[in-house]
């Protein structure tokens, strides 16, 4: 399978199912790539897969694609590939790949089920930008007949917050869009803050749309709980020490990385929230404190 075909397949997946996480779409494309791969040796196969993942990262530069791809690769090759026949090995890998895909497709539902119990009746929730996982959580809470109000930040430069507000209105949840600059103003009214994540790093911190760090600092100052909801395939082996330490390939969208010469002139799309500001993380592995994330990562990767 050529790289162009792979990218086209990936884009088709996203167009076909707009609700799917980009990492899931990436993994579906990788599975298809695996099926159509023509290499003769396992080493060759692994190299092709790594190349494919890199290609997908160039298309969609979010952290989740990178982490999901690496986890996929590790998961399928973690079995005993002792069969002398390459096609048998490939079948085993494809089976495991499908198992992995099934597991992560269910992860969003699991997170939603875990988190919605933390939303009490009459709560006021603040969220940032547009996250499908947060939407699922609020959906579950509404289905549970809880009454709550949601404040969403506008989240410039792409106004993703307005899209989130539309989706929430369709679920008959009272929602209000606020400016990014009004986070400090609104913080005293809200009871809790729930945000999604693009990536969860080794320290237990999260990488998310720009403006999340600000929100976390404000909620800490007001002693409001700051919850992060993320699926487990977003756990990535990065360890940023501060905002500068986040690698450039995640900070900007893929098109800007390719076209622009001087990245210092561009505005980054994500920021890093350190673990000291996060109260709890809701994942399909369970409800974790930030220090437990490293534990889970060691289990996943070692």
């Amino acid at each position: 399978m050529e790289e162009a075909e792979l990218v086209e397949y990936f884009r088709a997946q996203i167009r076909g199912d707009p609700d799917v996480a980009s990492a899931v779409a990436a993994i579906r494309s990788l599975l298809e790539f695996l099926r159509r791969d023509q290499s003769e040796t396992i080493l060759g196969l692994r190299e092709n897969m790594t190349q494919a993942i890199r290609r997908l990262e160039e298309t969609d530069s979010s952290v989740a694609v990178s982490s999901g791809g690496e986890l996929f690769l590790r998961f399928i090759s973690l079995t005993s590939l002792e069969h002398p026949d390459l096609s048998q090995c490939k079948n085993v890998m494809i089976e495991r790949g499908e198992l992995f895909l099934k597991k992560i497709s269910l992860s969003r539902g699991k997170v939603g089920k875990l988190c919605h119990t933390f939303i009490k009746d009459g709560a006021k929730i603040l969220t940032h930008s547009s996250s499908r996982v947060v939407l699922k959580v609020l959906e579950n809470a509404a289905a549970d007949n809880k009454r709550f109000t949601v404040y969403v930040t506008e989240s410039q430069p792409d106004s993703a917050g307005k899209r989130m507000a539309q989706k929430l209105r369709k679920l008959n949840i009272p929602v209000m869009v606020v400016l990014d600059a009004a986070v400090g103003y609104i913080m005293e009214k809200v009871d809790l803050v729930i945000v999604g994540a693009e990536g969860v790093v080794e320290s237990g911190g999260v990488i998310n749309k720009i403006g999340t760090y600000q929100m976390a600092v404000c909620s800490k100052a007001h002693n409001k709980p700051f919850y992060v909801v993320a699926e487990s395939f977003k756990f990535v082996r990065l360890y940023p020490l501060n905002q500068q330490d986040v690698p450039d390939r995640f900070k900007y969208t893929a098109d800007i990385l390719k076209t622009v010469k001087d990245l210092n002139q561009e505005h980054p799309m994500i920021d890093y929230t350190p673990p000291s500001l996060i109260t709890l993380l809701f994942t399909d592995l369970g409800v974790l404190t930030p220090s437990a994330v490293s534990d889970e990562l060691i289990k996943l990767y070692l």
Partner: protein
Amino acid sequence: MADSVGRQVDSINHATEEDEKKHEIIGAKGEGKELTKEEKQRLRKEKKQHKKNKKDDRGPPEKEKEKEKASVPAPSKPATQSPAHKAAPVPVNASASESPVAAEKPAKSKAELRAERRARQDSERASKQGKKEGGQQSTSSKPKATPNELQPVVKRLPDHVQVDDPVALKKLAKKLERQQKSGQGCSLNITGVKVPLRSDYGYKVSLFSHLHQYSRKNPPTQQISIPVTVIHPSIVRLGLQYSQGIIAGSNARSVALLHAFKQVIQDYSTPPNEELSRDLVNKLSPYISFLSQCRPLSASMGNAIKYIKKEISNIPSQCKEEEAKRILQECIDSYINEKIILASEAISKYAIEKISDGDVILVYGCSSLVNHILCEAFEKQRKFRVIVVDSRPRLEGREALRRLVKKGIRCTYVLISALSYILPEVSKVFLGAHALLANGYVMSRVGTSQIALVAKAYNVPVLVCCETYKFCERVQTDSFVSNELDDPDDLIVTRNGKTHLENWQTVKSLGLLNLVYDVTPPDFVDLVITDLGMIPCTSVPVVLRVKNVDQ
């Protein structure tokens, strides 16, 4: 039968007030592995007293307790009033130690309860065994039952943190004396050569009176007579190098220790009717006691010793001596290679990712690992400059400065008092560690926690570099409970021919404190770089757990 058990339980409850002190002494002793004859005799006496006391009323034990309480405040008064001559430190120390013991009594109620429970369990077990084996065996089985009972219930304090307890000191002296008889089945006639017990030097600050304080001018080797038949000469040399500070730094000490053990194993010959796997371990014990008398063992040395002992006891019994020695030499070599040399390569690889161009890196003291990382980063063409922070009395930063400047790295040198002046310039802090404790605390050279604290206040990331063999299962939240006191005379400095502190020992109220280690809480440390990868400080118990599963 149940009746007798019940009666024994009652008698124990009656006698607890009197026994509590004895149980405390037994509970507070440094060794849990072997019960000496004295302990077994004492336990037998206690059992006899239980049987006596169940007939007596509570009067006598209470009277004795009152007498004890009356005697305890009395010695503390003469201790403060009398001029505490240095010529007679022992009685002063003894009486001074009794008052803290008495003061600790109300706080030690948990130990009392544990002692009661233990005694009850002992008696029940003993009575059951007495049923089976008959009355004659019961007295011997009771002390046998107690060592197994005592071990899991009470965590013993190691004897190096019980210097203010005279009973523990006596126990240690006896243990060192016993260790001259190397091996039970040995037919050597060694006369009077024992592992020397070093005596403390100078006035100790009261907060640290439970630790040893030795003088460098009295090395322990002066007390060993020639020829030394018990302690191997390479161990003697090693001990001297430790006590004089010639070998310093936890990696250097561990490597030197392992090399010395290689020499010992090379020169070892199994005595007849003995197995190498058991006898060699017993041979090593007096050496280890000697080394800990020269300088308290570090956590890394402790882990290395545990590894060697495990490898020795895993030698199959049918293995020939030459073969076994070869295996052990290989084990030691691979340990040094894997855990120290290759680990430092892996750590440099991870650490270099964190060093970017234009960085200003602050280092403290001389850590072999941090120096290695900086030299590697410089070779990989990273552009950075280094600020070396140093402190008295060791001035180890000068050695680090020497090594870095030799490589060609741009360095600045400050003393620790200038820390808050220099920190706004710094972008990262790299620290070495002596040990990483199980609760995430970092034990390192004194001054490290200060640097971490001020760096946190300036929002500068603090990175600790530590190999996994330095992780230890101990838990500590402060720097007092387990530390090391260095020679207090090191603090004396002569400037322009004048030494102000020359006669510090004559001033009664003056104490010189030369601490070696301190403990940094995990909130101040942003990242720990180990050979397994980059982990947050709170994940140390996870690594320990993974390592235990591997082994």
